[in-house]
């Protein structure tokens, strides 16, 4: 319940303040979103598994976003930014899929 409220609060804050992203950070935004979604689905699955842990969730969220941004940054510097972004999206996408499948099994028993 708190989690949902916090999420809504974040959305409202974003709409109210309407921040503009500096152009230098723009390439990292999609990757950061995918990384954050991975952490969130992991957390939801853990919740349903009954093993949710606040510390683990926060650390995995921040670490995911930072590492994903770092990989993209490194890739940009090396000239393989596009390929590395694809790699990050594939790995995180697979994890998201797996976690969503687990959530689905929890919710629908199928």
């Amino acid at each position, binding site marked *: 319940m708190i989690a949902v409220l916090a999420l809504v609060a974040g959305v409202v804050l974003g709409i109210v303040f309407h921040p503009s992203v500096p152009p230098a950070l723009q390439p990292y935004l999609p990757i950061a979103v995918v990384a*954050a979604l991975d952490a969130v689905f992991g957390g939801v699955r853990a919740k349903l*598994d009954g*093993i949710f842990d606040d510390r683990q969730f926060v650390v995995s*969220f921040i670490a995911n976003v930072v590492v994903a941004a770092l990989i993209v940054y490194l890739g940009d510097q090396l000239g393989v930014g596009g390929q590395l972004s694809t790699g990050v999206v594939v790995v995180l996408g697979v994890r998201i899929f797996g976690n969503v499948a687990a959530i689905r099994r929890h919710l629908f028993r199928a």
Partner: protein
Amino acid sequence: MTSAEGGAERRTYTPDFLTELFRNPLDPGYADAAARKARGEGPTGARQRVLTGVTALTLVALGFLLVIAYQQTVADEPEATKARDTLIQQVQNRRSDTDKLQARADQLGNEVAQLRQSELGGAAVARLRDLEAETGLAPVRGSGAKITLGDGPTPINPVTGNRSTEARVRDSDLQLAANALWAAGAEAISVNGQRLTATSTIRQAGEAILVDFQPVTSPYTIMAIGPDKLAEAFRDGYAGKFFKELVSRYGMSFDATSAKDMTLDAATELKLRVAVVNTPPPASGSPSAGSGSAEPGGSPSNSPSKGGR
């Protein structure tokens, strides 16, 4: 991320990374934390409440992130279309400007023609009109031939994905047709409404064909005013044979028919490149007449410098 003790009870061997990823997408940290909690080592009381608060803050950040990403994506789209709209607007503005200027030029041309008629009168005007009709400066009317040329099918090669351009009408085809018509005695020719003059160009620019720098597209209609047998002469001449060969080989369309009562517009612009006063101003004339006749010679005299292109 793979901690040894997390999955130790379920795994007897270490699978490679991707297999591990597919089999167990959940962070093993959750299992570790659960195990710690079961052992009674987990955070309790005030510490737990702080952690819950941090989680809530993280979720706020997440919602914030999602909204920013959404707004960014939405904002990017109009940025691109805005630039395109501006360009389209500019093109349309320039086009309407051109139309206005062209209309004004036509109007002034008519005025000049009327003034000339009233000033000169008689045989001189008739001679001028004939000359203008021949050179393409004046619209002409009459019967002659109508040649239609169209692109053949341009299938896309399924292997390379490139469009075959073999069956397209090329500038050289139009040049050949125009030259054959001149040779067959045509007096005036227009390609898709573009009147040809002695200095007209028919050129290929990429995929487009430009007639006097105006793009023309398939099907190409070449109208020519000339003798009654012009269409037959064209059809039976070398050009007709050439186009029939193109039709049978590439599937282009070709048609040459006689046409009656066609009107060919004047050429849009004919750049005067060289002008010479062929009769010296009469010495007996008044000085004002002398300066008057020097003036028309004066303005073309600076055009040879531009004529080099």
